[in-house]
Structures are given as structure tokens and as C-alpha cells.
């Protein structure tokens, strides 16, 4: 699976993931405290400059932000109709600023760095006995590993429908897909335990 991370050596790439995540949290808090469309526009422009400094190219930059910008526009129109242009402007500028800052963090932080950071953040929870921090990375790896297998199985089930002249329906597709996939859980779990990956207590 392709990630949204882009290799590079910009200022943001060099910052630690923790700094970036904390920074993003602070930025979002501040954005929600500001109620002036003018200042929020400046913030959005600043975010735009940071995002542009990553040099993703116009096309890439647009493709990444398109779905969220479209949602923001629809919701802003909705706000315009019910609350007037002032509130609509706040929605557009605040959310656009937030979106570009967030997209900049995503583009400059590799999934591996994220997983390491999340694992470290989970350490206090491990001490409380809530989770095993190492399980987080393992589970994320498992998901990425098995998505292609499931897509392959989906194709096979669809072909089986076609071969028998049956129409593809959500139920006849989902049920065998789920059962066939989950039936592997026992063997995968045994393979993990047999290799002593999760130390048993």
C-alpha cells in the first residue's frame, strides 16, 4: 500500500514526529480560539506556504487535499445559507488552515516513525496493564499485510459468482469473504505464538 509520506529533506522532515504532532495539536487549539476571519485567513495562507515549501508539485498537492477541500466547501455553503457569510468565512479559513497543516505533517512523517511514536506514547498505558505497546506496530503490520490477500479473495468470490451466473450482492459477497478471512486467524495466531513474537507471561 502506498503511503502519503513523501521522502525529502525539508525543515519539516527533520523535525521529530513528536514535535510535529504536538505542534499540530497546538495549532488546532489556537485556530479554534480565533474568531476573526482576517487572522484565520493569514493562518491558512501560512499553512499554504508551509505545505507549498514541501514541493510536492501542483498536481500532487491538489489531489491530496481535494476530497477534504470539497467537503469544507459544501459545509461552508451550508453555513452560508443558515448563518450568513461571516460564519461561512470562518469555517472555510479555519478548516483549510487545519487541513494544510495536517497534510504537511502527514507528508513529512513516515509510517514507521509514526508507529514508533505511537508505541512510545502507549508505554504509560502498558504500565497500567491496558495494552502491550509492541502490539500496536504488530497489528498495523498485520492489517497492511492482509489487505492484498483479502482483495484477492474478493476477486475470487466475485469470479465464482460470475462463473455460476449469479449477480454479485453485498450479502453473498461479504459473508463468504468474512468467514474465509477470519478462519485464517487461528493459524496466523499460532504462527505468531510459535515464533515467540509476543512473549507469554
Amino acid at each position, binding site marked *: *500500500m502506498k*503511503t*502519503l509520506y513523501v521522502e525529502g529533506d525539508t525543515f519539516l522532515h527533520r523535525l521529530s514526529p513528536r514535535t510535529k504532532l504536538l505542534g499540530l495539536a497546538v495549532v*488546532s487549539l489556537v485556530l479554534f480560539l480565533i474568531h476573526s476571519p482576517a487572522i484565520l485567513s493569514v493562518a491558512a495562507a501560512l499553512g499554504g506556504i508551509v505545505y507549498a515549501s514541501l514541493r510536492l508539485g501542483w498536481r500532487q498537492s491538489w489531489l*491530496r*487535499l481535494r*476530497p*477534504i477541500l470539497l*467537503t*469544507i466547501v459544501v*459545509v461552508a455553503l*451550508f*453555513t452560508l445559507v*443558515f*448563518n450568513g457569510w461571516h*460564519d461561512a468565512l*470562518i*469555517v472555510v479559513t479555519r*478548516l483549510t488552515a*487545519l*487541513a*494544510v497543516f*495536517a*497534510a504537511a*505533517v*502527514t*507528508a513529512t*512523517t513516515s*509510517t514507521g516513525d*509514526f508507529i514508533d511514536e*505511537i508505541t512510545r506514547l502507549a508505554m504509560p498505558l502498558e504500565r497500567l496493564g491496558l495494552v502491550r505497546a509492541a*502490539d*500496536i506496530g504488530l*497489528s*498495523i503490520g*498485520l*492489517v*497492511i499485510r*492482509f*489487505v492484498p*490477500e*483479502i*482483495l484477492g479473495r*474478493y476477486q475470487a468470490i466475485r469470479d465464482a459468482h460470475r462463473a455460476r451466473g449469479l*449477480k454479485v*450482492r*453485498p*450479502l453473498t459477497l*461479504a*459473508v463468504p*469473504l*468474512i*468467514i474465509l*478471512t*477470519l478462519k485464517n*486467524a*487461528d493459524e496466523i*495466531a499460532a504462527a*505468531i505464538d510459535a515464533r515467540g513474537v*509476543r512473549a507469554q507471561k
Partner: protein
Amino acid sequence: MTTRDLVLAALFAAIIVALGLVPPIMLGFIPVPITAQSLGVMLAGVILGARRGGFAVLLVLLLVAIGLPVLSGGRGGLATFASPTAGYLVGWFFAAVVTGYCSERFVDRSQAGIVQITGFFLAALLGGVVVDHALGIFYLAYITGTGLATAFIGDLSFVPGDVLKAMIAALAGRAVMVGYPLLPHRA
């Protein structure tokens, strides 16, 4: 959590991701394509129960957060959580937990089929429709400042589709329970 629980949750998260990558499926009786990812969230609760189902959805959200384009239409990354509709997305976790908890309470293997389907339907309706839409509406109203009533009106157009998904989740949940039972029972 046992290794098996961990693997079941991870496999279900992978199913939810895969459901976002396949083209929308047409229903037989009405000409509406079903985007299957939110159906997957209800299924996680109905099939795996509250704990494992909730963990499966949490994994999907984690994948989104770390920059993998795992949502339908190739969406992903932290910006997704900056969307005005992020309440629905974060609501998925609570939807799966509530659907799972209710399924464990309402349904057990000794019941008649129709009782099981009704139980699963109510569970998916409570979690996947009531809880998820409530969180979505709250966040949308907060973000736009339009008030809950207006946000609720905007939300209504998505309710029929999700009720339909709850129905499909109920039928699928019952079929999986017959074929490969996994749901724990809560007295």
C-alpha cells in the same frame, strides 16, 4: 487480549480497508450503490463483539492517522480529522463498540434466526446509526456554529442508506454466526 483476538481484530480492520477499495456494490431492489466501509464498521461490532470490534475500527483510524490512504476514495492522513465531517469518522469507533456491546447482550446462539437478525439489526441501528450520526451531528454543529437542528437536517439524507446497511449487517451477522461463530455472549 489473546494473540487470536489481536489477529481477528487486525483481519477485520483489513476487511474494512479492503471494502473501501472495491467498487460500490448495487443492491438488488433499489438503484443505490452501497459504499461498504461504514457497513464494515457495523459488521465489526456484530461479528466480533465490543472489544475486538472496537479494536478493529481503532486500527483503521490509526492507519488513517499515520498517513495511509485507507478510506474509500483514497482518503487518509491527519487532514481527514480536520474535516467538518470528522465526527462521523471518529464516531465509527463508538459505533463498533456500541453495536458490539448490544449484539453481545441481545443475541446468543440458541435463539431462533429471526430473533438473532432482529437483535443484530437493533444493535447496528443503535451503534451505526444513532451513535455515529449523533457524534457526526454534534461535531458538524460545533464546527459550523449552525446549531444542532440545522446539522440534523443536513444529516437526515444519509439516514436511510445507513438504516439499510444496518439491515445488511444484521443478515450478514446472523449468517457468519451460523458459519463461524465468534461473538461472545454477555448476560
